[in-house]
């Protein structure tokens, strides 16, 4: 599948944003950080900026961005529509939380419950994003049991790496946050390894023979292509990445996306001022790694329509 930059940016940036807001919500639910209003507000703001950037970028790949509002209508059947509805719904607790934190006298809402709503809606939005891919049967690399856990864990993990950096930058040590970051980095690493192991060993039941209905006749090979230059299908669905590059990018994704941020979040709370630099380096490294991971998620996925073209 063609790795469109707008969709890669959307899933990674908004994933991190929702992950960050989910963690913030969970902390508020638990009653942690109660005194740290500035920290809460800046975390919320960073989360909202990331989510909004991602959502705006996702509209850039539309043929008619001005009609994007129509995408909220088909939530009964479409995961893309559900994602849109949930993404917008998340702004409600986020906005109310912001107002409550800024003007506690004027908007005296219960921060605990707002936190819970924020965490739940953030996770549901990421789940809906993952389900868009999970439900596409023509792409085996997506329609499997690893897609949803990978999306959810990677979103919360990137959020945690950010939150770790925010906390360290504020000169705080919050053990639970650092611990959660370490755990999520390791879980994310294992999940991604499992995902790649699965897609590498997976054999597609669809073949050129089943695609043409000629299974009973023997081996089916492309004799002549229907057109002389690439059409939409080949440009959109016929993207393929060289094995050599895929292997290198997988290593980059694993090292930069999981292992380096793990190390950074492990050491940053104990290294005082250098810890801030280290935590920010962890964020940068995770950004590079997760962008590579998401690029591969698209570029390595093969759509069954390519069988008609012998690709």
């Amino acid at each position, binding site marked *: 599948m063609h790795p469109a930059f707008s969709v890669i940016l959307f899933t990674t940036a908004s994933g991190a944003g929702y992950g960050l807001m989910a963690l913030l919500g969970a902390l508020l639910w638990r009653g942690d950080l109660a005194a740290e209003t500035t920290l809460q507000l800046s975390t919320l703001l960073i989360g909202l900026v990331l989510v909004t950037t991602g959502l705006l970028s996702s509209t850039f790949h539309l043929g008619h961005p001005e009609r994007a509002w129509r995408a909220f209508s088909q939530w009964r059947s479409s995961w893309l529509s559900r994602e849109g509805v949930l993404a917008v719904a998340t702004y409600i607790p986020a906005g109310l939380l912001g107002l409550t934190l800024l003007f506690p006298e004027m908007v005296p809402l219960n921060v605990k419950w707002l936190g819970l709503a924020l965490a739940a809606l953030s996770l549901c939005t990421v789940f809906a994003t993952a389900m868009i891919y999970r439900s596409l*049967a023509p792409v085996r690399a997506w329609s499997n049991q690893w897609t949803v856990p990978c999306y959810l864990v990677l979103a919360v993990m990137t959020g945690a790496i950010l939150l770790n950096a925010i906390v360290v930058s504020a000169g705080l040590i919050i053990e639970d946050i650092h611990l959660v970051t370490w755990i999520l980095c390791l879980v994310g690493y294992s999940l991604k390894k499992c995902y790649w192991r699965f897609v590498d060993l997976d054999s597609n039941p669809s073949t050129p023979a089943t695609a043409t209905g000629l299974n009973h006749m023997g081996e089916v090979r492309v*004799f002549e292509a229907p057109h002389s230059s690439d059409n939409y299908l080949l440009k959109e669905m016929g993207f393929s990445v060289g094995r050599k590059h895929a292997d290198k990018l997988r290593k980059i994704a694993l090292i930069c996306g999981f292992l380096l941020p793990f190390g950074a979040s492990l050491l940053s709370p104990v290294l005082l001022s250098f810890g801030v630099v280290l935590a920010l380096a962890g964020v940068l490294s995770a950004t590079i790694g997760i962008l590579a991971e998401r690029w591969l998620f698209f570029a390595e996925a093969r759509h069954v329509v390519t069988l008609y073209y012998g690709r």
Partner: protein
Amino acid sequence: MTALPQNTPKKLGLVIDLDTCVGCHACAVNCKEWNAGGHMAPLTDLDPYGKEPDGVWFNRIHSYEVTDSEGRSQTVNFPRSCLHCEDAACVTVCPTGASYKREEDGIVLVNEDKCIGCKLCSWACPYGAREFDTDQGVMKKCTLCVDRIYNENLPEQERLPACVMTCPTSARHFGDLGDPESDVSKLVAERGGVNLMEELNYKPTNKYLPPRPRRRDMKSSPAEGFLEPVVSTSENPVLYWIDRVLSR
């Protein structure tokens, strides 16, 4: 609504005969001609006379070489277009309601005024039936010539999809596959019509008729005998002599 109808009593669709298709691309061309001015018009062509022509087509005619277990091969021409599936995922994934399946006849259509061009429907289609019009910013697909088959301004015998009308070998048949007594349903039953990519369970309406078995009583290929004497003495002495002279 992008929810699929519970049941469409009528299932209009095509039956494509891979035995008689000669791969002439006439269906694709006539489809393009009609639909460039039809329901989904325009079917944009980019760089049509340049080095990298690219445009929207509803029919793509592939050719395959099929080799059996004994090494005998044959060419199969294979027209590919929308199969108007019963479980059309292209419809249910649509976030705007632009994609829909008609309850009255099962035809899958796109309302171009509602399409936001997110392309998700084309990802959901295993058959590559949907092609994005980059110029118009909307998705396009086969309409089963909905603007021909019910068109009372056309003579009755022309109320057929353009691809069916034009096929010089009558390899394309149009009818109601929901009615077991229809000509197309009988043809499918008689010739063992098949679904494409049955394993994905999209329940396509269109059926493909596999090529009839080839003759198996042919003597060995004439090429093998080229270097051997063609005629024996007893059969015809004159030809035997000519064969001897030519074989030198």
